[in-house]
């Protein structure tokens, strides 16, 4: 017997699948990245994509905007980029009577999907302007506050190799990203597909398959998914296990971690778990769902200590140990 909720879930899955398929027409070999980006969008969060140049990060974001019926803007972060270049500024205008007045010129941030390309190349001041907008979903210029349109979704990219002359994002600002996704090198099979699609006369085109209202409805559906206390408890224990002083801490955490995840990490685990549950046709969140989003949700929220930095410890290793050792509650 099909109920309204079942239909709601089916619709969610169908819309998600449709969007993913459209993106996959252009982006090849990054199933998980596409999933993560879409999940972040549906979770009302933002994504930090990390990967070397040329892997299609920017292409992914532009394709996402093409697939969704949303306004898209791209900001190339450079050291001389000013906050006003992002948020917009008041400019002097003259009316028909010749009177001059100040008028706010909206910056590129006033879009639904914002690509902040190479976000670590801008100065901290400029980065802060973006990150404040990400959190507050509003921009204040002068004495005036301007609300950003919903959905507001920032996809920031950064290059982990060329660190010279860059300004790494501070931890507090990293925490504002729902997920940090690592874009790896595509496989041979994927490269074949990429070359086949991009070196011909006709490049594949994508259509807009997801409306703004649908995205907002999907967000509501995500929030409605119930989670039992034992599963939530599991997410909390995973989050707490990232803290070296916590009773749940494991050896790697105690050795290499200076600060663990904030409560935003637990939120990301739960919301990400809810989306995963819906995608698996389940009406409840399981511990497996929480585990599946843990890497993306926590890797940028763990701050390594000197020893961890010196030994170039990957936070994914620490999270994997936590996932392996944290028992499920019953």
């Amino acid at each position: 017997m099909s109920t309204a909720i079942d239909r709601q879930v089916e619709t969610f899955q169908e819309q998600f699948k449709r969007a993913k398929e459209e993106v996959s027409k252009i982006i090849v070999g990054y199933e998980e990245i596409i999933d993560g980006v879409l999940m972040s969008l549906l979770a009302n969060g933002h994504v930090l994509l990390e990967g070397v140049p040329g892997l299609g990060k920017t292409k992914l974001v532009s394709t996402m905007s093409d697939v969704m019926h949303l306004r898209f803007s791209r900001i190339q972060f450079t050291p001389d980029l000013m906050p006003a270049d992002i948020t917009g500024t008041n400019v002097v205008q003259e009316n028909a009577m010749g009177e001059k007045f100040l008028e706010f010129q909206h910056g590129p941030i006033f879009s639904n999907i914002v690509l902040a390309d190479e976000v670590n190349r801008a100065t901290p001041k400029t980065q802060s302007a973006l990150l404040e907008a990400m959190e507050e979903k509003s921009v204040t210029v002068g004495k005036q506050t301007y609300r950003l349109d919903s959905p507001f979704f920032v996809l920031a990219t950064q290059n982990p190799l060329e660190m010279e002359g860059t300004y790494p994002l501070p931890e507090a600002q990293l925490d504002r990203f729902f997920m940090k996704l690592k874009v790896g090198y595509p496989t041979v099979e994927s490269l074949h597909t990429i070359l086949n699609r991009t070196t011909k006369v006709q490049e594949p085109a994508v259509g807009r398959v997801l409306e703004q209202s649908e995205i907002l409805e999907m967000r509501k559906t995500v929030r409605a998914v119930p989670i039992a206390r034992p599963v939530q408890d599991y997410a909390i224990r995973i989050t707490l296990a990232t803290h070296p002083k916590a009773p749940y801490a494991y050896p790697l955490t105690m050795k290499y971690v200076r600060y663990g995840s904030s409560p935003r990490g637990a939120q990301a685990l739960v919301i990400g778990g809810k989306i995963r549950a819906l995608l698996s046709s389940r009406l409840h969140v399981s511990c497996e769902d929480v585990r599946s989003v843990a890497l993306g949700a926590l890797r940028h929220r763990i701050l390594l200590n000197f020893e961890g930095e010196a030994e170039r410890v990957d936070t994914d290793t620490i999270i994997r140990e936590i996932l392996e050792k944290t028992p499920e509650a019953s």
Partner: protein
Amino acid sequence: MPMSDREIIIRSLERVERRIRANRLFCELSFGLSLFLAIPVALKLWDLVSPFTARGISFLIAIWLVAFAAYAGRRMVRKGRLADAATSIDKQAGLYDEFKTAYWFIDNPRSSEWVDAVIRRAAADAQRLDLDRLYPKVFPRTSYIAAVMILAFVALNFVPLPWNHNWLNLEAAPALILTEREQSLLDQAKDLMAQAELMQQSDLAQQVEQIMKQLQEGKISPSQALQQLQNIRNMLEEGNLDMGSINDGLEEIAKDLQQSEDLKEAGQAMLEKQLWQAAEEMRKLAEQMGLNTPDDMRQIQDSLQQASENSRPGLEQLAKDLKDAAEDLRSQDREGAQQSLENAAKELESLAQKMAGQNLKNQASQRLQSLEESLRQRQQKGRDGQQQDFDDEAQRDAQEGEELEDQDGPGRSTSATGKAQQGQPAQQPGQPGTAEQANNDGSGQMPSGNPNAPMNIHGAPTKLDVQLEQETLTGMHEQGTKPEAIEEASKQERSKLDYRNVRSELSPAQKDLLNQDRIPWEYRPLIKQYFQAIRPASKQEK
């Protein structure tokens, strides 16, 4: 009435919990049982080497049962939670926390369509799932180990060894195993007492048998058994006749009777302690009373009168009967005299019976004393924990018992014959003995069948079981056999047997007193010097 979704889930979880608990219990109990069964198997193996008594087995098995019951009880009390069952079923059926979530929301109700949908879906899955397939009854490997242990235990009980005791048939080693020598002593004492009882209507033999049975079963301690055997011996010795005085009195009476020609044979029989024959002679005299001349009658009267004056303790009635007969003869009351002589004959027979009975009782008492002595020694050794010595001793005693049995064999056969006579005295003077009795070597177990053999009223003579060993002297072959060499060789003969079996008339208390030797030999001079030093000055001068 159809069940609600919540009821379906709860029922399923309860069922799963029961099955998980049953499987867990089975696993834990079979594991525990296999471990616990190692104990009785080990005990049974030990029992084959050193048998346990019934009390020991009962104690160990009781401890084992209590420990296992405590273990099993503790395991059984542990009840699982439905939340755990939900987690388990999720894992088993790959339901990704569906039951866990549903049960949590059943426990913590919330008004939400989504929650209702979760519960509804879980209930549908609960009906769809084959819980018996998901949770089959498990036979853990440890159950096979437990079965093997049980089989081993049963098999050990049926090992065909003479010293194996089948615990399953409630058999156990007796608390005390009598050595062959002790068993021989006991049997002899029982036989002797049974014969004495036939004459005196008592049940001491049964009492002794009862005591030994209780001792062997461990119902009474060795010290209690010793005390009871001592009581039996005291009872045996109660009312003993003064045999020396009676013998002396009989001898004097006999001599007096021999002064008359008609009473000469009766007197001779009395002198030879053949009292049954003497009684017969008395009866003959009474029957022939009318045929005697007046002079003979006077002579008889005088002899009887003189004999009646030898009254001693135990012979009062005989003296009175003889005196009555003399007076009847004096008053020419022939019938009265005949009656008095008949009474005297009966008294003689009674006396013979009493003496024979006492002889048997004395011998039984001696056997009991030997038995007591043996048990006391074993008790002492048991206290010292010298179990090995005990076994060696039992072995030696068995050998000695065989020898003792060989020596006592004829006496015991006579006893058996006496027993078969159902109430008759074992032997009567003047009656021909059986072939076995004729072969009696006079070791004193019973009065001999030989009418001329004196009655051994002091029991069997004490013999030393000494077996001498010839030792070779150096130089004998070169120098030839000289008288000195033979004498030297004789001096150097050594006994291969110890002297423990030499019977002593001393009571255990007396022996203990005599054998007290707690002062080490090397300290004795020092102690002597000490006491000499502290002597008063006046005595020192002396």
